[in-house]
């Protein structure tokens, strides 16, 4: 079993209204010195098998086909144990 964490974030230059709202809320709570806040998504995926290279290739295909919209989002894949 391979566990992986996929992180999907908005590309630079793509407006993130939700991140902006969170930024404002942090300021309203009194947190000072908060710069830009960007909201993203995390997927924890379990895969059968033990071949990390195959897992990485499969996960990349999953990101390209479904988990990320590459028009507006970037993704990164981290394999765990």
């Amino acid at each position: 079993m391979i566990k992986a964490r996929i992180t999907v974030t908005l590309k630079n230059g793509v407006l993130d209204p939700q991140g902006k709202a969170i930024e404002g809320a942090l300021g309203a709570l009194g947190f000072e010195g908060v710069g830009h806040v960007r909201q993203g998504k995390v997927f924890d995926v379990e895969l059968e098998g033990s071949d990390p290279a195959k897992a990485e290739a499969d996960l990349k295909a999953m990101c390209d086909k479904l988990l990320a919209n590459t028009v507006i989002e970037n993704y990164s894949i981290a394999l765990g144990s």
Partner: protein
Amino acid sequence: MKSAVVLLPGLNRDRDMIAALTKVSGSPPVTVWQTDTEIPDVDLIVIPGGFSYGDYLRCGAIAARMPVMRAVAEKARQGVMVMGVCNGFQILLEAGLLPGALMRNTSLKFVCREVKLEVANANTPFTRAYRPGQVIRCPVAHHDGNYFADAETLARIEGQGQVVFRYAEGTNPNGSINDIAGIIDARGNVLGLMPHPENLIEAAHGGVDGRGMFESALGIAA
């Protein structure tokens, strides 16, 4: 002209769309379900609005990967007219049949109101019934209608007349770049728009401004 309406779980504007197509064309559209792999021989395929798959992951993302959408893509390749309204527009973008993406409204609010639309391109199979630059009324109801495309894509679609509708007179309800409300593909047979023309097609709706889109697509208008 024959039409088809795509049905997916979570869509809720399908009945309005079926009613509009029936009233404008005089005959009801056929319906196709998400698992259908073939679509009957029709001239126009419509994907209505709603919240397919509860908007999980991203609006339209799951629906765009269902078998029926491969059939829609094949019909689009053959030149059949395809029209996506609201969630249908989001699905067409997620399916890669139109360029760009729709993001959360800049206000972060669901907007349900009437807007003004400028017909930015009246030379399409969906807008022949309108005059170039004509401003029409149309209802919108969405949370994720904020159109975005990278600079290169935006320059391309603007340059090729692929922006078909723009929010006019300061009524942009969602922060869409260049006030974009609806776009067409480069070939000119796939249209996506956020506003709901199916809800303004008869006097009982308070106006008929949306009717021209169906009359154009169904070949009723010259």
